[in-house]
């Protein structure tokens, strides 16, 4: 079924009787060529591109809960490609280009909205660092703009310019960045994959891996054993748990990141704003809620909930930056579990087990990577070669010393 405005009008007149399920609920087959573990954004996108772009079939996505229940369903929806390092920037720019065509690609309105992102500059040194980054973005084919204080004031007049502890001296602006409707992304990929024959199996938890002679044969699940030609794991947040079933330890820790939304308000904030001197970033959803977040709580956690100090830290930053939001109310907070990697950058690679592939370590930046991550992982699964924009995301880079450390804080995951 193709979605369109015409169809919406037709169904409105016909009492909505014609809408079909977005996806099936198939019973698991005994064997697939490709088993993707994890029905989140990355897993679903991987399955979608495997089927669509790489023309593979006999693909299953196994999801422990309901599809999209992981971090794709609990994030702050920001998309951007404003990275510094050569290992990262081309990949995220590839992702941005996929975002820009996502609705047409999947025939599902994921509400990709390019309203821009501003990273605020508070010191001269920060301006130098952002100039380096902005130029790196341009050289990778992305867009970037250095905003003067006046340009910034014109664009976002409501910031605390005149009584700030850390003066606002400009910003690095990426116009093509913005937000997307997070659930819509998962649903668009899921529906697209399902239409191409991918079996999306919900409530199917992987409980073990069958590995013989260094080769993966299949996965044990809560719904029985499923044999697989290749197994791709995309379960960020639970990577260590799942990969330990294959006897692997990862350069990853799981941490909780809280995010917040305010009650609905008439539009006040145009794009995404990131406070460079505190832990705060914010955008406003199409429904009117201010969507914001800050730093991770900082301790290992699988609990999907955080604590008050970070709530206060985030709002201290928010109020310092834009005191006009003060009389709005916090509506809801939630916590997601992040795969915090040892250099702050992701991993998309084969593993030491033949036929077992790993995608993870996305830290708190996995959402924006969803299309490219899915595409690159599908590429790797289909061709056994890394996608050209993801060649740096090797698992052995830690042992060999080719780190992709954007923040320069070293092997301490909670600092990335």
């Amino acid at each position: 079924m193709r979605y369109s405005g015409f169809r919406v009008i037709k169904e409105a007149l016909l009492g909505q009787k014609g809408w079909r399920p977005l996806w099936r609920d198939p019973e698991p087959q005994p064997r697939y060529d490709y088993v993707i573990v994890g029905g989140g954004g990355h897993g679903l996108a991987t399955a979608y591109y495997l089927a669509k772009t790489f023309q593979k079939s006999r693909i299953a996505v196994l999801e422990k809960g309901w599809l999209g229940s992981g971090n794709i369903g609990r994030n702050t929806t920001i998309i951007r490609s404003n990275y510094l390092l050569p290992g990262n920037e081309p990949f995220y720019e590839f992702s941005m280009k996929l975002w820009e065509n996502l609705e047409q690609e999947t025939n599902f309105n994921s509400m990709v909205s390019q309203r821009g992102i501003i990273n605020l500059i508070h010191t001269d040194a920060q301006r130098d660092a952002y100039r380096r980054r902005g130029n790196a973005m341009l050289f990778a084919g992305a867009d970037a703009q250095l905003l003067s204080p006046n340009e910034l004031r014109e664009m976002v007049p409501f910031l605390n310019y005149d009584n700030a502890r850390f003066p606002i001296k400009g910003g690095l602006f990426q116009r093509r960045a913005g937000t997307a409707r997070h659930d819509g992304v998962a649903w668009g990929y899921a529906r697209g994959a399902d239409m191409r024959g991918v079996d999306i199996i919900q409530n199917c938890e992987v409980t073990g891996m069958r590995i013989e002679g260094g080769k993966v044969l299949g996965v044990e699940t809560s719904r029985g054993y499923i044999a697989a030609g290749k197994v791709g794991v995309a379960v960020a947040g639970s990577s260590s748990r799942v990969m330990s079933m294959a006897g692997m330890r990862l350069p990853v820790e799981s941490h909780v990141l809280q995010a917040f939304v305010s009650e609905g308000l008439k539009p006040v904030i145009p794009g995404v704003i990131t406070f460079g001197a505190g832990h705060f970033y914010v955008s406003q959803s199409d429904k009117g809620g201010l969507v914001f977040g800050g730093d991770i709580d900082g301790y290992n956690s699988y609990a999907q909930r955080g604590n008050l100090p970070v709530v206060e830290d985030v709002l201290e930053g928010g109020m310092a930056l834009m005191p006009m939001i003060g009389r709005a109310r916090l509506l809801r907070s939630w916590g997601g579990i992040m795969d915090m990697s040892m250099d702050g950058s992701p991993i998309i690679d084969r593993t030491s087990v033949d036929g077992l592939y790993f995608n993870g370590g996305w830290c708190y930046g996995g959402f924006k990577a969803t299309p490219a991550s899915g595409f690159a992982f599908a590429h790797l699964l289909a061709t056994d070669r890394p996608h050209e924009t993801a060649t740096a995301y090797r698992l052995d880079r830690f042992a060999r010393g080719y780190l992709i450390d954007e923040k320069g804080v070293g092997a301490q995951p909670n600092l990335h």
Partner: protein
Amino acid sequence: MLIPHPLLGLRDAQEFTYLGDASLLNRPDASSPDAAVAFFDYVYLRDNPAGVHRELWFHEQGDRSWLIVTRNTLTHEILNAELACESAVKSEVLA
């Protein structure tokens, strides 16, 4: 969270700075032939358990003791806390 400091009793976790897995106590011998592998393991690889986790907290806004806290990462329940220096000395004696 509240950290049960072995000397000072329950103290707010905000007084502490978190580091990570207590395996960081076991710094490998740099002179051994497999030092490169051992250090890679030490610096980068983590068990990252969903459950009981022994981890290092620094009482930075307090008595500046490094603590080993045993905490469940699924529930955040804290099972134990001890001074890292005592544990470090102990393991040395045992070794």
